[in-house]
C-alpha cells in the first residue's frame, strides 16, 4: 500500500492527491493531445463525441453524484445550450469563444429557474419532476419556432477561431483539440469546486440536509447553485453537441437522451468525476463495438443475410445489466478496487472484493 506523507496542508488542498496521480493524468493528457496522430478520422470523430458526452456527464455527475439530486431531464439543458449558442452566433454574430460560455450561462439560468420551485423535492420525486420538464421542453422548442426553427431545426454554423474554421467534417482534428481544451478546462473547474467549501456544502446537502442546515448551509441556495452549475456545464456540452451534429431539432434532445445520460454516469461510477468519462466511453464505444462484432459475425456467416431488428440495443441493454450486477458502484468503483488489489500485492486476500452484505433504509424519512 502506498503511504503518503503529508508535510503541509497544501498536500490535501492540491489539484491531485499526490505526485503519482499528477504523473498519470499528465501522461493521459499527452496521449489525448497526440491522439489525432494516432487514430483515423472515424475514431477521432468518436473520441470527439465521447468528450461531449463526458462534459454532459460531468454536468449531471455534479448534481447526482455530488449533491445527491437526481435529474431525468438534463437533455433540456443540452438543448438550451445548443440553441442559445447558435442563436448568439447567428443573430448577434458573437464568436464561439463568447457564445459558448454565454450558452452555458443561459443553461445555468434555466437550471436555476427549475431549481427554485423544486428545492423541496427529493430523490425520485425530483427525478420525475425534471423528467416532466424535459418532456415539456421538447414541446417548448416547437412552440418557440421563430427562434428554434421548430421541428425543422436549425443548422449550427462553423466555429471560427483565429481565422481557422472548425467543422465536424472538414476539420475534425481541429474540432477534437478545441473540444479537448474545453473538456480539460471544465474538468479543472469541477475539481476546484470539489476541493473548496462549495463542493463540501454539496456533499453535506447530499448526506444530511438536517445537519447541513445546522452547520449553516442554506439548503435552498446550495441546491439552486448546484443545479445552476450542473446545468451550465451541461449547456456547454449542448453547444458542443450542436456543432458536432451540425443540425438539430426538438427530437434531438428527447427524454431518451436524459435517461442515457443518467445511465452513463451510473455505469461509469456515481460520485466520481472519472465515472463521467468511463460512462462516456461506454456510451460511445460500446454500441460501436457491438456493431463491429456484429459485422464480423455477419461476415463469417456469409454476409448480409437476416439482421435481427434491435439486436444492438438488446445486446447493449444486456451488457448494461451485466455491468450493474457485476459492479453496482460502476466501472470506476471497480477500477479503484483493482488498484487497491495491486497496491496491496501480495497482501491481498482472495475475496477481499466480495461485497459484504449491505442493507438499505427508507428514504421516505426526510
Amino acid at each position: 500500500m502506498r503511504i503518503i506523507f503529508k508535510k503541509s496542508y497544501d498536500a490535501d488542498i492540491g489539484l491531485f492527491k499526490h505526485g503519482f496521480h499528477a504523473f498519470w493524468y499528465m501522461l493521459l493528457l499527452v496521449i489525448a493531445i497526440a491522439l489525432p496522430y494516432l487514430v483515423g478520422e472515424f475514431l477521432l470523430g468518436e473520441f470527439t463525441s465521447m468528450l461531449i458526452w463526458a462534459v454532459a456527464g460531468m454536468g449531471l455527475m455534479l448534481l447526482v453524484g455530488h449533491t445527491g439530486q437526481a435529474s431525468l431531464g438534463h437533455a433540456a439543458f443540452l438543448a438550451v445550450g445548443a440553441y442559445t449558442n447558435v442563436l448568439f452566433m447567428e443573430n448577434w454574430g458573437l464568436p464561439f469563444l463568447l457564445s459558448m460560455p454565454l450558452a452555458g450561462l443561459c443553461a445555468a439560468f434555466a437550471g436555476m429557474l427549475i431549481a427554485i420551485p423544486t428545492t423541496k423535492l427529493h430523490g425520485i420525486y425530483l427525478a420525475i419532476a425534471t423528467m416532466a420538464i424535459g418532456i415539456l421542453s421538447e414541446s417548448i422548442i416547437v412552440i418557440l419556432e421563430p427562434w428554434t426553427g421548430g421541428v425543422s431545426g436549425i443548422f449550427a454554423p462553423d466555429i471560427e477561431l483565429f481565422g481557422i474554421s472548425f467543422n465536424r467534417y472538414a476539420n475534425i482534428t481541429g474540432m477534437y483539440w478545441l473540444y479537448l481544451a474545453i473538456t480539460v478546462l471544465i474538468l479543472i473547474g469541477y475539481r476546484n469546486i470539489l476541493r473548496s467549501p462549495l463542493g463540501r456544502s454539496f456533499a453535506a446537502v447530499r448526506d444530511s440536509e438536517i445537519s447541513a442546515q445546522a452547520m449553516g448551509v442554506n439548503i435552498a441556495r446550495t441546491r439552486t447553485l448546484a443545479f445552476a452549475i450542473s446545468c451550465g456545464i451541461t449547456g456547454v456540452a449542448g453547444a458542443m453537441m450542436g456543432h458536432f451534429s451540425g443540425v438539430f431539432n426538438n427530437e434531438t434532445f428527447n427524454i431518451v437522451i436524459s435517461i442515457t445520460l443518467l445511465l452513463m454516469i451510473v455505469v461509469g461510477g456515481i460520485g466520481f468525476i472519472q465515472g463521467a468519462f468511463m460512462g462516456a466511453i461506454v456510451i460511445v464505444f460500446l454500441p460501436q463495438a457491438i456493431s463491429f462484432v456484429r459485422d464480423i459475425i455477419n461476415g463469417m456467416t456469409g454476409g448480409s443475410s437476416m439482421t435481427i431488428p434491435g439486436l444492438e440495443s438488446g445486446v447493449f441493454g444486456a451488457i448494461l445489466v451485466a455491468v450493474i450486477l457485476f459492479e453496482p458502484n460502476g466501472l470506476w468503483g471497480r477500477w479503484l478496487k483493482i488498484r487497491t488489489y495491486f497496491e496491496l500485492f501480495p497482501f491481498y486476500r482472495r475475496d477481499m472484493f466480495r461485497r459484504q452484505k449491505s442493507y438499505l433504509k427508507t428514504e421516505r424519512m426526510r
Partner: protein
Amino acid sequence: MDALQLLVSGLANGCVYGLIAMGFVLIYKATEAVNFAQGDMMMLGAFVALGLTNEHYAHLPFVVAVPLTILIMAAVGYLMDAVLLRRTFGQSQIAVVILTIAIGFVFRFVAGVIWGHEPQSLESPLAGRDIRFGGVVLGLDEVFVIVVTIALTVGMYFFFARTKMGVAMQASSQNQMAAYYMGIPVKRVHSLVWALSGAVAAIAGILFASKGSIDPATGFLGIKAFAAAVIGGLGSLPGALLGGIIIGLVEPFSARYLGGDLARLMPYLILVLILVFRPHGILSQVQAKKV
C-alpha cells in the same frame, strides 16, 4: 353531454394508468425500488395474452389465456427479481433504476423479435362492445377496466394494511436490516412482490390491449403511469389510482376545452405543479425525520 362522455372515458383511461401505477407502487412499497421496466412488463403481458389468444398464434380461448398470462407474467416478475435484482440487494436505488431501464431495453428487444414491430390487436371479447346510457357510450372494455382497477386497489390496500405479509413487505422496505432481525425473509418477500406486480402488469396489459392495439413501444406509457404514481404519492395505493384518474381526466378535458399546445402539455404541467405545492404527492408517504 360532452362533459359526461369525457368524464367516463377519462375515468377509464385513468384506471389504466392507475393499474400500471399500481405496479410501480407495489414494488416501491415493498422494496423502495422504482421499476422503470413496469411499462415494458405491461407491454409484455399484453403480447403474451395476444400470443396465447390470437388466431395467428396459439389461439387459446380467452378465459384460458387470461389466467395463463397472469401466471406467466408473475413468473417473469419473480424471476426478474430472483435472478437479477437480488444481486444488487442493498445497493443504491439508482443502480436498480438503471438496471430496470436496461431490462426494459431487453424486454422491448425480445418482444420485437417474437412478435415483430408492427402494431397488432388483441382478439379480446371485451373489445368493440359498447354499452349505451342515453347519449353516453361506454365500452365493455372500459367498464371492465374501471371495475377491475377499483377492486384490485381495494384488495391490495387491505392486503398491505391488514395482513402480516403486507405489513412485513412494508417493514422490509423501510429497514432491510431490521426486517432481517425480525426473521422476515426479505429477499423472498421482494421476489414475491415482484411476482405480484408482474401479475398486475399482465392484467393492465390485457385490459389495455383490449382498448386498442399494441406494439413493443407500448411500454412508454409507463412514463405517464409513473407520473400518476408520483402525483398520488409514491407508495400509496389509493394515491396511484387517484393520480391515474387525475391524468386520465386532465387529458380529455384539456384536449376538449383548451386545445392546442397547452392541452398536449397539460398532464406534465399538472405533475410539476402538484409537486411544487405538494413535494411528495397528494397522499404523501414521506415523513419529516425526527432528530
